[in-house]
């Protein structure tokens, strides 16, 4: 089924999407917010530019965007999959606690902040290009993976990555010589076990965006985890 987004308010569109059981194509999208928020089933294909908070609280559905997305993609998502064939704006994957987000190109500032894991829920956020400053700030769980496949000469990540990190893992496809991490995290070359953990995500990334997996081999990965010997203490309050 095809839907012209310009004829809908976000509420009417989301009501329609919730009533659908198979694939829905949303076309002519120009800034409509909250698409697929809380959606638990079905597949939504989007042409155009979806507005802020795409797939917020997503709860099992799959969303594919043929192009760029704006800010706050997958905010607090719980389950499901979001695939962006382009860039995402700021704060993608904010506080997500389950599900997977795949971004083909670059991501903005504050991506994956407050990401957390709960029981069997381990969220994953995979960025093909580069990420802006404050990547994974206060990360508490899950995987953030940045592949640095951008060709604009910009660094793989901006300033202040992993500030306040106290759980989860971040993978950067780089030796990270020029990246400044806070003292409370440990950055080390990724070993075979680390790489095995993220292999399924890398395969899915290659599959979604038609990349040859050989790029995985041709550059070192750095893995960042909280330093359990020197954790964050009392950044704002006693903990």
């Amino acid at each position, binding site marked *: 089924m095809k839907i012209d987004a310009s004829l809908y308010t976000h509420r009417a569109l989301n009501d329609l999407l919730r009533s659908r059981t198979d694939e829905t194509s949303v076309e002519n999208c*120009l*800034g409509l*917010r909250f698409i697929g928020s809380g959606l638990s089933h079905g597949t939504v294909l989007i042409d*155009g*530019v979806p*507005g*802020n908070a795409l797939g917020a609280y997503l709860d099992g559905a799959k969303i594919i965007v043929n192009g*760029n997305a*704006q*800010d706050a993609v997958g905010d607090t998502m719980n389950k499901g999959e979001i695939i962006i064939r382009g*860039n995402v*704006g*700021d704060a993608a994957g904010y506080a997500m606690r389950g599900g997977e987000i795949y971004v083909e190109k670059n991501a*903005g*500032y504050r991506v994956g902040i407050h990401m957390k894991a709960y029981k069997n829920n381990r969220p994953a956020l995979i960025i093909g290009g580069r990420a*802006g*400053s*404050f990547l994974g700030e206060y990360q508490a769980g899950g995987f953030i993976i940045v592949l640095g496949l951008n060709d604009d000469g910009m660094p793989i990540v*901006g*300033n202040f990555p992993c500030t306040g990190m106290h759980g989860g893992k971040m993978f950067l496809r780089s030796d990270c010589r020029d990246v*400044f991490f806070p003292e409370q995290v440990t950055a080390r070359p990724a070993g075979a076990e680390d790489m095995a953990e993220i292999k399924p995500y890398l395969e899915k990334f290659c599959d979604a965006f038609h990349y040859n997996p050989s790029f995985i081999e041709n550059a070192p990965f750095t893995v960042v985890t909280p330093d359990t010997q020197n954790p964050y203490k009392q950044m704002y309050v006693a903990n």
Partner: protein
Amino acid sequence: MLQKEGQVRIPSGCAIAAVISKTGEKIGGEKIVAGIRTMHERSNGLGGGFAGYGIYPDYKDFYALHVFYDDNGARTDCENALKDLFEIVKAENIPTRKNPAIKDAPLIWRYFVAPLPSRVAAMQIDEREFVARAVTRINSTFRGAYIFSSGKNTGTFKAVGFPEEVADFYRLEDYAGYSWTAHGRYPTNTPGWWGGAHPFSLLDWSVVHNGEISSYDTNRRFIEMFGYKCHLKTDTEVITYIFDYLVRRQGMTLREASSVVAAPFWTTIARKPEEEQRELTYIRNMFSGLLITGPFSIVLGFSGGLLALNDRLKLRSMVVAEKGNTTYIASEEAAIRAMEPDLDSIRSPMGGEPVIVTVNKGVLEDGN
């Protein structure tokens, strides 16, 4: 009674958009309206506005004063003061059309003026300083009169309403310029009066702003030492004065002025090459009172160009796109795609990274 800025605080986002033709081609007002309209949800109907550059080619050598009046008494008083300082070559109502959403409209007048040379000479200041002082004096001392636009070959149009309603009210489609900025307001601290809508303009500077400046009072106290008066208690007004002070009066480049208001963190400065460190340290120390903290994305309009800037933490979104010789700036990509669906490139500038777009040399006569 209608409350003005400063009389009440409303605790509570905004939308900005801009377009510029580097080859100086005329862009109709309806283009920028198409962009800002897309971001309707970022505003709440308490303010919308536009600034156009190159829109008054027939009067390009005269300062265009746009004035709100509470009543005709205020108009007579203000006009008497203007006649004392300026030769008024044309005085008229700014053409408007009725729009059901635009209410409580003040009297809205437009004057094309030239400063009286004898008065400028007597004060031993240059013409632009003369105009700036006249605007500041009238806005701070005249009851019921507010000059909200005062540049050459440029004009600001603003009101309480959603931006697309404001554009309809001012018949924006009747104007064409080489650049435009636009704002949709969601006031955070003040009630939303016509004068408090964006853009905030002085001379040819205009600022549209999305955000909230936590350093407002520090900035205000610093800038008021140099003769500026922050009439409206809204944070954006002070940004206009800061750029006027740093660029027109201190002779800084736009890039230098940007590193004053969005200075890099000391940890970031420490990683720069030595000479750049020295310069950035000097600027941070010298103008610490003009550092703007808190979230902002702004577009500064001026004769012949636009500057787009985010706060150093990039707490507000902003995207910049190119198509041929035209540059687009907006809070959201969707707004840019509404103006131009097929773009050559699109990117999000980093926090504190100024994006400066100027019209090619020689395109505009007299630098206007």
